[in-house]
């Protein structure tokens, strides 16, 4: 076997990179909220592609190992303990049969990742193991994990070369005020100059009605020229929609495929992890960058992941 869930936590799901190829029929992409933390966890365990991992939101799960397997924890700091002893995050560690891994409330960040050296044995649904809660597909029976659920780990590894190198600096999500880089959105011209200025120069606060679907922000209303209704079109990860209230909503992993509100901007992909890990109350400053800068940062991110994989494997 692999693992048994003793406590489910607040919202623990199986996620991978996402379910691509079905947006044309109305299926959300889903997938991890913080791709960077998720990929680091995989790299520490010798995986070029992380595959599927557990994603926990705010309150982590308690898990019993039913088989020996290496694991790694990244993302939000949920003060992890193994059999009651504090353990480090961003390290490859061995969980032995009968060991209990317990995560508590996140002290920093929102989303924590638990990856295993092996493949999580849940069915591939439409090309992905990601849980889509709305459609109740993917992951573990299409739902959040609960006490008593068991998931096998296929090809579980208990040893990897260079164990002493399998760690990475902790990415702490401690900042309560952040700069988030954005690109102009497809409907940026729907907004007045003052509207755009408000968006880029005032401060927005992450509200507690933020979830895997979208982050709702509080702050100065963004003024449009002639309303914000558009003929519905596709919504990318990080798209910043302006609804009639003028208060921005950033669309996240579980966003619907199509939307009818104008999109003033799109968060640069490299800043999505930092945004995803922003708790309610976090203050955001949006900074406009060009597509050239954003894609240069994307290539740098990819190079960092390659470097990390090589340095630890």
């Amino acid at each position, binding site marked *: 076997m692999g693992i048994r869930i003793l406590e489910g936590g607040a919202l623990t799901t199986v996620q991978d990179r996402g379910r691509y190829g079905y947006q044309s*029929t109305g299926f959300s992409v889903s997938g991890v909220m913080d791709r960077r933390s998720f990929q680091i966890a995989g790299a520490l365990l010798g995986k070029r592609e992380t595959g599927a991992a557990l994603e926990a939101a705010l309150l982590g799960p308690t898990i019993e190992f039913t088989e020996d397997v290496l694991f790694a924890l990244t993302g939000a700091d949920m003060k992890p303990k193994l059999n009651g002893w504090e353990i480090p995050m961003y390290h490859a560690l061995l969980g032995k049969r009968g060991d209990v891994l317990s995560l508590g409330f996140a002290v920093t960040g929102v989303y924590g990742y638990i990856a295993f050296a092996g493949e999580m044995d849940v069915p591939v649904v439409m090309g992905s193991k990601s849980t889509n809660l709305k459609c109740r597909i993917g992951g573990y029976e299409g739902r959040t994990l609960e006490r008593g659920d068991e998931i096998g780990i296929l090809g579980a590894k208990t040893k990897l070369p260079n164990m002493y190198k399998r760690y990475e600096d902790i990415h702490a999500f401690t900042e309560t005020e952040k700069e988030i880089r954005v690109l102009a959105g497809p409907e940026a011209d729907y907004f007045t100059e003052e509207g755009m200025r408000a968006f880029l120069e005032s401060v927005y606060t992450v509200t507690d009605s933020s979830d895997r679907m979208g982050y709702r922000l509080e702050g100065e209303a963004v003024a449009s020229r002639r309303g914000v209704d558009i003929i*519905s*079109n596709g919504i990318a990860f990080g798209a910043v929609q302006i609804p009639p209230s003028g208060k921005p909503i950033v669309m996240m992993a579980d966003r619907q495929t199509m939307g009818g509100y104008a999109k003033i901007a799109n968060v640069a992909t490299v800043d999505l992890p930092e945004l995803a890990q922003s708790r309610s109350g976090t203050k955001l400053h949006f900074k406009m960058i060009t597509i050239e800068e954003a894609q240069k940062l994307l290539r740098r991110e990819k190079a960092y992941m390659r470097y990390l994989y090589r340095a630890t494997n």
Partner: protein
Amino acid sequence: MEGFVIRQAGDMAVCVEFGNEVSETCNAKAGSFYRSLLAAPVKGLIEAAPAFCTVTVYYDGSVIRYDRFAALLRKRLLSLKEEKRASGRTIEIPVCYEGDYAPDMMNVSQHTGLSPKEIIELHSGRDYLIYMLGFLPGFPYLGGMDERLSTPRLPAPRVRIEPGSVGIGGKQTGIYPLASPGGWQLIGRTPVILYDAKRETPVLYEAGDRIRFVPISKKEFDALDERGGN
């Protein structure tokens, strides 16, 4: 093909716009571009999502730069022949317009002044273009309902609409692929499972196809019922 605009939608997507209106002409352009991407993907392509008059194209911005990707799309678009009409398939959906499956038939009859028989004839008497799928998996935005059938939504939405329900909401008609809350006037139900994640093709139709509702009796509904009765 001409008359398109390519806009950035972040560093991993572009939105190709074929006019800013809900029309068969714009939708046909979007459809043929979408199908051409499916048939012959361009470098960096992840997937594409067609809507009323746009196609949002998702790509890997770490593999190909925006200007290069936009150039590939432009080249493809210019090489495409213009289609005046969507060239999709016509999908027949059997619908029982009777009894419990048509709880709001009398509402629609009262509002329109048409008899149930006339409503069924008008509703099933033409093909509906699927402009796009969205809102729910497999939920088709259909165009072209006979205006005589227009009926406002229910004053209070239902908490649960059964999968397969066919309804009218204002000037639109549609079909619910899975259980959902909703305020449409329900005039029928199909026994066909429209969406099944385990099927090789989870949704039976795609944007650009046309739907034809074929009236069936309660008995035929039971014989065809893929859910095994509910």
